[in-house]
């Protein structure tokens, strides 16, 4: 009954959307200026770049059931391999840990003679000075084959029965790792790529201007799309892949190996993505670690429009998304009705479009991705029930120990590390509530933190709202935004939600945080902390006759503020897990239908989790802005959201202990302060270790560090109890 009521509504909305879309398209095509900008070579070429990444995503999903968030990063990595081969004749290798250093270090420590210097692991394979186009292309594509095989055999084959969350985590880990390797090897600045095709202008009918390379790459992308469609439509391999995607068990019975097919598709995907990545870099005549990976959001949007199965629809959506961005630039410059901020066109509107498309598509479709007919499905990370001892003994002890360490014992660098860790714990906690307890993957936690941080600046600096009302208001507004984001989450879950939240994070960063009305432009978004908590204040504090601090920066009181807020949030989440609400969240995570059957209000539970999670992230954003003395767009980026998500999962996504572990590991946190100050490991290894740790954790230890630590502790306790029982019996 309910379904029959909903169907016409959805149909009506579908038709309205289609009518609006057709109307807008006609409007654009009849107006000469709009048409010239919409059908411009640069717009079509931008679309081709998006399609290049998107069809790889569809290919991977059809072949293995993995929505590959790292596809843009793979394209970027291949482009780097190609560029270095062309310019230096070297195939660069990722930085690998050298086991010999374990021998070298102790020998040199005890030896007083000449230091032992064992061979290092090579960083490159050299083929000469420079390589020509075809040798470089061949080696790069061979590398892509190996990369595809490695991704399949080392990562996604072991995860084939894992839940979607784990696969998303692994692909985010690959994204971070590939980016980190490139930054480590070549710095973050763009590297020139010798163009493959010439850039001479070509005038086509209807006033369309193309450069030769843009036209060639756009045509090639269309040819590849057709080729993939034909491969899946007409060949035995394509039919077998489709069969395995729809019913894995049936495919096995028919004599196909889903794993073999998956492996072939991974290789096909990485080769195709790599090749298109090279072509994209050739058009751009440069490659950097950010630009191509950032295509992931419009590419995922296009893939979603194509329902992760249609190459044609995906390509069409990709081209349209590219073309709209050109049109948006034109409209922003020329049209007075275009939203404005401080006299200039509202920034980032082209990034808002993919978000709107995603929300519309998911609303209209409702039923999300085509479900893969897997043989079995793995379980989500275990969420332990906090013991009374943990709440009454370990918790307060940890807080007191942290306070003593932070206020009296720690050096300034460790105090700073502790501050970063405490902020990190809060961000990780927000992920624990949403992802760990309710199973909803959010990749936009820093967007909520940023909303609160920038609002705090307005409230505190411009309107004089005092502490602690201003940060609380900031966090409440973040909570409200979280509830808004939860609305589409009522219809979607898992990977789709990850896509929505990622697009949300990108849109907020581009349209809100980069807006000079929000970030303060030249004046910046200043956040003046209460004097007592000012991080740069250097003074001694007396408490019960004891001097707190060493009179150096950072101010110990800043740590105290962070500790108090973090502890409160930890207690809130611990008690949430112990409460009925927590149990309802876990029931929702395990099986929404079953939860609904036992009278759990799934919608309310999800909204509450989103709201609470955004509130915690918002509070972290506010406290962080107090700590820095300003809110800056560079701190609240979507990549930061991915990084914090990585560390939250690494620490343990389903428990407060996990969030604490995650906080220790974050960039600039205690873990890396220790590595940097004591072991002298450079800070740029943070992301490499984070990405690698994320992949390893996803495969070997989904419970994260906290889960592993907890299970070992339980084993020891059980063994101890067992021995005691035996004693009593004897």
């Amino acid at each position, binding site marked *: 009954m309910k379904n029959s009521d909903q169907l016409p509504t959805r149909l009506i909305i579908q038709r309205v959307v289609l009518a609006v879309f057709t109307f807008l398209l006609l409007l654009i095509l009849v107006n000469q200026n709009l048409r010239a900008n919409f059908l411009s070579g640069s717009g079509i070429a931008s679309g081709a770049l998006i399609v290049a990444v998107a069809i790889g995503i569809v290919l991977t999903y059809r072949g293995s059931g993995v929505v590959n968030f790292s596809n843009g990063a793979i394209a970027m990595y291949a482009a780097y391999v190609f560029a270095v081969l062309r*310019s230096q004749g070297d195939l660069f290798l990722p930085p690998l840990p050298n086991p010999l250093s374990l021998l070298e270090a102790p020998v040199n420590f005890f030896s007083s003679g000449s230091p032992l210097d064992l061979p290092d692991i090579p960083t490159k394979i050299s083929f000469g000075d420079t390589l020509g186009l075809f040798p470089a292309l061949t080696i790069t594509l061979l590398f892509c084959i190996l990369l595809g095989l490695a991704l399949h055999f080392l990562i996604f084959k072991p995860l084939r029965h894992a839940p979607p969350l784990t696969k998303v985590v692994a692909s985010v880990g690959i994204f971070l790792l590939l980016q980190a390797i490139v*930054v480590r090897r070549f710095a973050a*600045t*763009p590297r020139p790529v010798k163009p493959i095709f010439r850039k001479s202008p070509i005038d086509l009918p209807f006033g369309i201007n193309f450069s030769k390379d843009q036209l060639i790459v756009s045509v090639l992308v269309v040819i590849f799309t057709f080729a993939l469609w034909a491969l899946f439509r007409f060949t035995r391999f394509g039919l077998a892949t489709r069969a395995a995607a729809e019913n894995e068990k049936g495919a096995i019975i028919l004599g196909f190996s889903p794993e073999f097919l998956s492996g072939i598709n991974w290789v096909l995907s990485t080769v195709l993505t790599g090749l298109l990545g090279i072509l994209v870099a050739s058009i751009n005549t440069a490659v950097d670690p*950010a630009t191509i990976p950032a295509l992931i959001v419009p590419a995922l949007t296009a893939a979603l429009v194509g329902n992760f199965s249609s190459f044609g629809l995906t390509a069409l959506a990709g081209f349209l998304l590219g073309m709209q961005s050109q049109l948006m630039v034109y409209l922003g410059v020329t049209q007075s009705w275009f939203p404005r901020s401080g006299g200039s066109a509202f920034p980032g509107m082209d990034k808002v479009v993919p978000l709107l498309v995603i929300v519309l598509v998911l609303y209209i479709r409702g039923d999300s991705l085509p479900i893969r007919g897997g043989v079995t499905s793995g379980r989500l990370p275990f969420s332990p029930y906090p013991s009374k001892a943990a709440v009454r003994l370990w918790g307060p002890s940890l807080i007191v120990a942290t306070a003593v360490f932070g206020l009296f014992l720690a050096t300034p660098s460790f105090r700073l590390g502790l501050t970063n860790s405490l902020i990190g714990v809060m961000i990780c906690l927000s992920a624990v509530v949403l992802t760990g307890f309710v199973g909803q993957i959010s990749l936009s936690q820093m967007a909520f933190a940023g909303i609160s941080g920038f609002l705090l600046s307005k409230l505190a600096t411009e309107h004089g709202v005092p502490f602690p009302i201003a940060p609380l208001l900031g966090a409440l507004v973040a909570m409200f935004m979280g509830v808004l984001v939860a609305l589409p989450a009522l219809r979607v879950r898992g990977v789709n939600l990850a896509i929505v939240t990622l697009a949300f994070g990108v849109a907020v960063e581009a349209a809100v945080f980069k807006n*000079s009305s929000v970030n303060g432009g030249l004046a910046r978004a200043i956040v003046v902390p209460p004097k007592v908590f000012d991080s740069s204040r250097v003074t001694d504090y007396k408490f019960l006759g004891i001097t707190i601090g060493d009179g150096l920066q950072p101010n110990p009181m800043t740590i105290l503020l962070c500790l108090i807020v973090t502890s409160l949030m930890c207690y809130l989440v611990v008690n949430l897990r112990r409460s009925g609400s927590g149990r309802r969240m876990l029931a929702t995570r395990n099986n929404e239908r079953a939860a609904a059957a036992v009278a759990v209000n799934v919608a309310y539970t999800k909204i509450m989790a989103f709201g609470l999670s955004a509130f915690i992230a918002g509070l972290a954003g506010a406290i962080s802005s107090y700590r820095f003395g300003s809110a800056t767009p560079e701190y609240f980026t979507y990549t930061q959201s991915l990084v914090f998500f990585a560390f939250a999962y690494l620490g343990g996504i389903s428990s407060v202990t996990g969030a604490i572990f995650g906080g220790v590991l974050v960039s600039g946190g205690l873990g890396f302060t220790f590595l940097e100050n004591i072991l002298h490991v450079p800070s740029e290894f943070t992301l490499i270790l984070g990405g690698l740790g994320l992949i390893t954790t996803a495969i070997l230890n989904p419970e994260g560090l906290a889960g592993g630590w907890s299970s070992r502790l339980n084993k020891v306790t059980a063994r101890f109890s067992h021995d005691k029982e035996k004693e009593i019996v004897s």
Partner: protein
Amino acid sequence: MKIRFIRIAAIAISMGIIAAGCSSDSSSPSGTDGSSDTTVATDTTVATETSNEWALAYTGATEGEAAGEPVRVGYVNQESLFPEATIGLMAAVDYTNKELSGFGGRPVEIVKCDVAVEEDGQKCGTQFANDPTVSVVLTGTLTVGNASLYAALDQKKPIVIGNGVTVADFVTKAGVAWTTGSIGVIQGMAKFTIKDLAAKTVAVIHSNNAAGKAAFDILLKPLFDAAKVTSVGVGVEDTATATDVQSALQAAGADKVDVLLPVVTVQGCSALYDAIKALGITPKVVTTGLCFGTPVKTHLADIGDKGDFPDGWYFLGYGASYFNPDVESGMQTYIDKVQQYGKPAEGSPLEYTGFAGPLFANFLTVAKFYQQIGVDAVTPEGFNTAMRAFTGPMMIQAGDLGCGVAPFISVCGHVTGIQQYTTAGGWATIASIDVRAAG
């Protein structure tokens, strides 16, 4: 080979308005009257003094090698993006220690702190604020962590800002930038376009961030409006590709305007060149010195085009020219010594036309103050007073200095120089402009 240099700024990427390279008429390093004087250089200036003599006179040091207890100077840079700044600084340090007797006879030790993420700014600021042996902190180029670095050091240690690229660099009260930086360069672009090129319509392509928007809204547009020049500004992302820039050019109507003013990153310079080529248009381009760096030169060679740099483009910089070096501004000394002491990364050529120059000049100017105050008498307060009162002349920077002019209170240099490159004639010095002067 050219990779190290590619890093030159590109990501100044992140932020937008950019510390330009250098250029202009070095024959009038001070005393410019606001009007632009046009002179065409025919050949490289011949040095009348040795480089060392110039440096000895500039710093007030005595010749010889430094010895004894080192003097520690703090240094913060975003090494993954701007290693050239460090090359310039370390060349200056080695030169000073070997030939200029260090600071008052004592060698100088640079205490480095690298910034990679926002949190590192506070970390570096805290480190130097807490270190009593460090009296002054130099910065290279930072796109993140600037604000928290300045907050931590404000009123504790004076900061000599190297190449300002973010808003925080220009409005902080914690330090000074002796070079004119992007502020002067961009205002100079507007004045040159109005007065010398007599443009009636201009298109500005700027980075789509706070600094880039400010470049258009605050520095360029008011000047164009006052001169009744129609201007259109279009923002592009910091990592804009040729395709993105092509869209921006089309939207701005770059094919119809008198002058095109790109205020973009190094990557944006190459992208701009490609986009102009793809559209088949030939606008008159006035841009910053970032566009005469090696990345653009490499790019032109890669795509097989003639000339070292885009033909006919105008470039604005800090005053003295890397390509027509003179003695008076210290440019000849810089070029001689950076080539002698500069240590490029393995397998890379020495890059000295970008962010290395201002760091070299800043260090020698710091040396000058140490000599003047007395190495053992230098305190953070004393140095702070001296550096703010400095009116020039400043090494490789044209014109006199004046700090504290609102709203860019940290920017002390105000004169910018203009050069033009043509495939047929090479480099020509065109003019120098004092951006404080009316008109």
